Structure formats: C-alpha cells, structure tokens
C-alpha cells in the first residue's frame, strides 16, 4: 500500500458538507457542533510532519546543497538543470509508462476476478482466499521474493530456459520493465479484485433478472449491466493504481536499482538517487516537487473527468 494510495476526493466532499449544513440548519444549535479545537491535534501533527517538510522541499528546490555545508540560494538553477537532463525526461516517461502498463494489465484482470469472486459459490470463496495471499506480504517482501525467484543462475530461469532463455531479465529494458509490471500486478491485483468484488455484489440483482427476461447473454450482461455499475469502483481503483504507480519506489530499489543503465530509473527513484547517491539535495527537491505537482494534477484531472465529485449516492452501496 502506498501512503497516498487513495486520492479519491470523497464524492462532493466540500459540496455535501455545504448541503448537510443547509439541511439541518434550522435545528443546529451551536453547542452541539464541535469547535475547531477538535481538529487541532490532527492538523498540527499533519502540518508538522507533512506540510512543513513539503514547504521545505519547495524552498530547497531553489537551493544548492550537499548536506555538508549550508544550503545556498541557487535561483532556478536546479530547475534548468532538470529540463536539460535527458535522464530526468526519460524518468518521467518511464514513470508514465510503468503506470499505464500497470493500469492496463491490472484493471481488466481485477475486474474479471472481482466480478467472478462476487458470486457466492463455495469454490469461489476458497479460491478468493488464496488469491488474497500476496496482499499479506509487504512490498519489500514481494520484491525480495521475486528477485530470488528470478535470479538467472539460482532461481527459476535456470530451470525453465524454454520460458526465460538466458534469464537476463534484469539486463534488458523490456525484461526489467516486464518484471516490475508483473510483480506489482501480482501483489496488487488482490486489492483491486476486492474493490470490484464489493462493487459487483452491490449491483442490484433485479437488473440481471430483467436482462435475463430480455434474453441477454452473459457477455451482454457483463458489458451492459456490470461494467456501467462498476464505474465508481473503476475510478477509485484507477486512482489508486495511478498514484501508486507514480510513486513506486521499493520495487525499483530492490529489483532493478533503476537499471540496466537508467532504463527503469523512474522519477521517484531518480529523486532518491539525486538525494542519497549524488548528494544533490537541491535537484532532488525539485524532482520531488515535480512529483507532487504531477500527482496532484492527475488526481484532479481524474476527479474532474470522471465527474466523480458530483456523484455520491451510487457509492453508498459499496
């Protein structure tokens, strides 16, 4: 799981707050409403450990600093450097590529599995329980597991050359990216399956009964009833995947170290390299800020495009 995994602005967060106020407006007696003080501990805590560092990142992105001497103001130098840095541009492209591949592979897979698992048959319950197991492992554990399983000389590839060839998975770009996409699919499909399973169970049965009377087949039912009804779940799950994909870090560090060359150096990892391998904290901060901006932008776009912020009632059944 990623700390920022869910970017779902809850449907109409501010909007509904406003509506709710209006609704119980006439009766609302001041005393029963919590004052701002109730929110202070959480706000202070979050401010200290998330917002303050974020502001520091913004400041540092205009500084030149190696951590040994005091930071010096550097104007736009870090930003200019990044724009001219081919690895930086490549890393953005790789982040997008990994994210898109992740969404493209995981979404259909987990929709199918989720809808299938939503059935109440006994064997499905048993299989679902097994499907869930990768979710019990941490990202680090999963990455370590696959690094060991995919070792060219001591792992599975050495014994399955018909499938893996020379086993040089981590030495060619396609192999390394394939491993990263596969490993995150292996780990995160259970979560998304669960989301779809919950959503599929909430689809009113009458819709299917009506469709059956009309003589609609299974495939037609899936495309005309199930999929449209899963709309909200699809949005939630895709936001999870997009933000998760953009901030992938553990998997890259453990599986590929950004290699071969810089072929899997995604932006989040490049930032880490800039900070803790090259000790260029200024540039690292600029990349970090860029990451924050991009993920804010993407979540806003997704929320807007989907009209997610205007829907509320359909989510209730989840």
């Amino acid at each position, binding site marked *: 799981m990623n700390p920022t995994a869910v970017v779902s602005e809850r449907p109409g967060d501010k909007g509904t707050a406003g509506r709710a106020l209006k609704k119980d407006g006439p009766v609302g007696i001041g005393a029963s409403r919590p004052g701002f003080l109730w929110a202070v501990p959480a706000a202070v805590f979050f401010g200290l450990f998330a917002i*303050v560092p974020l502001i520091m990142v913004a400041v540092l992105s205009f500084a030149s600093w190696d951590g*040994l001497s005091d930071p010096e103001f550097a104007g736009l130098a870090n930003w200019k450097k990044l724009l001219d840095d081919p690895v930086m541009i490549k890393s953005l492209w790789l982040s997008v590529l990994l994210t898109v591949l992740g969404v493209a592979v995981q979404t259909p897979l987990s929709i199918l599995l989720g809808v299938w698992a939503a059935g109440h048959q006994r064997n499905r319950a048993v299989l679902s329980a097994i499907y869930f197991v990768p979710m019990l492992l941490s990202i680090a554990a999963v990455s370590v597991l696959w690094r060991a399983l995919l*070792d060219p000389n001591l792992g599975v590839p050495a014994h399955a050359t018909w499938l893996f060839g020379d086993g040089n998975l981590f*030495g060619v770009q396609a192999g390394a990216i394939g491993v990263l996409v596969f490993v995150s699919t292996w780990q995160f499909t259970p979560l998304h399956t669960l989301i779809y399973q919950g959503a599929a169970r909430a689809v009113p049965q009458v819709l299917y009964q009506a469709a059956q009377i009309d003589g609609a087949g299974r495939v037609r039912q899936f495309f005309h009833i199930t999929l449209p009804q899963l709309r909200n779940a699809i949005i939630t799950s895709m936001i999870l995947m997009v933000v998760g994909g953009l901030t992938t870090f553990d998997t890259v560090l453990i599986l590929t170290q950004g290699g071969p060359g810089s072929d899997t150096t995604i932006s989040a990892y490049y930032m880490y390299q800039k900070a803790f391998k090259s000790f260029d904290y200024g540039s690292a901060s600029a990349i970090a800020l860029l990451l924050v901006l991009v993920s804010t932008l993407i979540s806003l776009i997704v929320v807007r495009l989907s009209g997610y912020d205007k829907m509320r009632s359909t989510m209730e059944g989840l």
Partner: protein
Amino acid sequence: MKQRARFSRTVVVGGAALALVLSLTGCGGGSGAADDGAIHVLVYGDAANKVEKELVATFNETSEVKVVLDTIPGADYQAKLQTIIRSKQAPDVFFNWGGGSIKPFVDAGLLLPLDSFIADDPGLKANFLPSVFNSAVVDGASYGIPMRGTQPVLLFNNGKVLKKAGVEPPRTWDDLLAAVKALKADGVTPIALGGGDRWPTLMWFEYLYDRIAGPELFQKALDGDKDAWASPDSRKALSMIRELVDAGAFGTNYDSVKFTDQGSPTLLATGKAGFELMGSWEYSTQQDAHPEFAKSDLGYSAFPSVEGGKGDRANLVGNTNNFYSVVKKTKHPQAVAEFLKLMYSDRFVKAQLSIGNLPTTTNTEAFLDTAASPEFAKFQYGMVKEAPAFQLSWDQAYPQSAATAMYQALQQFFNGSMDEDAFIEAMQALPTS
C-alpha cells in the same frame, strides 16, 4: 537559506514535544545513538567485520571509554555516511577510502586533523607504508589512519575449471581471448561478472585504460581535460572491451547477476565460470561462503598485459587502502587515539591477514607466513610493493555526484546499448571538481 533554519527550529520544538508525549505514553524504543558515553565506530558491513568485532572487544577489555561498532551494509554505506556525518548521530570514527572520499568532509570542516595524535605517538604514521599513508593526507594534514588493508583488483580463477578446459591464467590479452574461447567451448561462462552492481564492470575499464594508455590518461580526464576521453587510446580501450564482450566472455545475463549478493562469486566457486576480475576481498568472500573452494581451487593472477600498450603490466587498480578518519566533534579524542594505535599492532595485522586482507603496516612482511593463505598474501604484497602505479577506483576518484551517471554509462556501453561516441560524451559530461 535562513528560512530553513527557522523551519527546522519550529519542527524541532514540535517534534521534541511529540517525542516526549509519545515516550511518556510508552511508545517508541530504539537505541538513539546520540550520547551514551561511548565511541561509535562506523564501518562498511561485510565479511571483514569479524576482525573489527574482535578488535573492539579487545579494546573494551581495558579501556574505560567503550567502543561501539556500527556497521552499514556495503550498498548503502556511502549514502548513510554522508547524510549522518553532519548530524548529531555522526560517528566518532568512520571507515573510508581516503583521498576523494573524505575531501568533501575536510572541505566542510568536519574532520579532525590527526597530526596532534601523531605528534604524541609517531608510530601512528611511521608504522605504515608512506605511499599508502599519504593518500589520506589532504591539504597537508593527515586525516586517516590505514585500516583493513590494500585491495588491488586481481583476476581470480577456478583452477579446476581452467584445468578441465586446458587453460592457463592469461599473461597477455591474446591469452585471455584464447582462454575465453576455450572455456566457452567447454560449456562454462568464461568470466563471471556481477554487472547488476555496476562497479565490477568498471574494473574492466580501469585495467584496459591503464594497460593501453597508462595511468596518465585517466589522471588527465580527472583534472578536467575532456579530450582525454576522445583520444585514440581511449577509443582503443573501448573497442577492446567491445571485442571481449562480443566474444561472449561474460555470457549474456551478467547484468542480472550481482557480486554483493554473492551471485558472481558463487558462479566462480561452483564451477559455472572460469574467471572473475575482482578486488582482493574476493578471497575473504570465498573463504566465508565457500571455504573448501577457497582452500583448494581458488587461483589468482595479475591482469594481462596488452601488446603495444603504454601501461606497465605491473600497474594496479583498486582501493589503495581503507582508512579510519575521526570526526571533529568527538568527545573522546584520547580514547580514539588509543583505539587507532591498534591499527598497527601485531595482533591486528595478524587478524587481518588471517581473513585474507593485506594491511600496509611496515611490519606486515614479517607476518605474511601467518596469513590465511601465505601464498596469496605474499603474491599480493609483492605486487603492491612493485607496482609503478596504483590507480584508485574511478568511482572513488571522481566526486560522489558523478557516480550514478558514470555507472550508467559504463553499464550501457558494456552491454551494447550505448555506442562509443555516446559513451565518450557521457564521460566528458561528468563533474570533475
């Protein structure tokens, strides 16, 4: 950046308050190395820690101020060191590679010059080989006491595998190419390479550049002469690397193999590969993981000479030595000085020799017979003593900020995803100051 100071002060207060509350409510735990009245010695975590632990235990038996040994596994050592050295949790004494690796710390005024220690006990200087000791002298002041040992890069082999293929350790480049061919025909990977770590790949560049152009070319490049990389000698070295890789010397999946997780040493030990070019620590690694192999079949030789090359065939590359440096803020300079004196003690020299390290004290020669493998120790010692030039690893010679880009270029040229011109361009773009 005054803002930063203000920010961090606000945060310190808030953080401290929170920490207090949390510790009162019973959450937390952990060591918090801050100030426990001990000397914290930070070393690179690997098989050699065994000796350091023994040494610390010996020291603590008699000393009032205790030494605590902290280790950080290899891959993260440099990163951690630089991030903590200025913080409250900075160690008192830390492991490093001398020269370039401590220069930024000296420039930032973080290190204690050791000259006063040496004035009190001249042995801290006189008991080490001068060439080695001097590589931790920065701007005329001494900042490091040699520890562990010198680590030249050698061509290790599996004697059994070579014998079976009818191959001798190569003396010339042509020998090596012939050996590659023979081993390949015999169905083994001729040379094990942990390309996933990238620095093992670097060693091939270091030696070929040295043999073809002599040590001067790299020195020029390091001094900022960008034309060095585009010179005919540089291109010749690159084309020879290309030739070797294309001959299948390293197999095809070397970039998926690592040295640090013992992938490539295992290939050598289990007879799946014939050679491995590696620092002298290969010996202690093998002794640790494959003691039988280390005893009976682990062979070694100098890097082959290249016909018509300008570099002497006795030249070495690698880590000249490891050093202990002292942080200025240490509260126990006296005890630290006492601890450092152990580095030239007979006991330390013998202990290092017993795990295959080669200390560079003046008394080392007398104890070579007590080494884990006296033959290996003598071979190494002889080479280091005779070497006209000992090139410090490129990744240590260049500033830290160059390392990532350098590794990427090396790996990509080596595996063929970058051509000669692009490689030269990438090397020219590295920061040199």
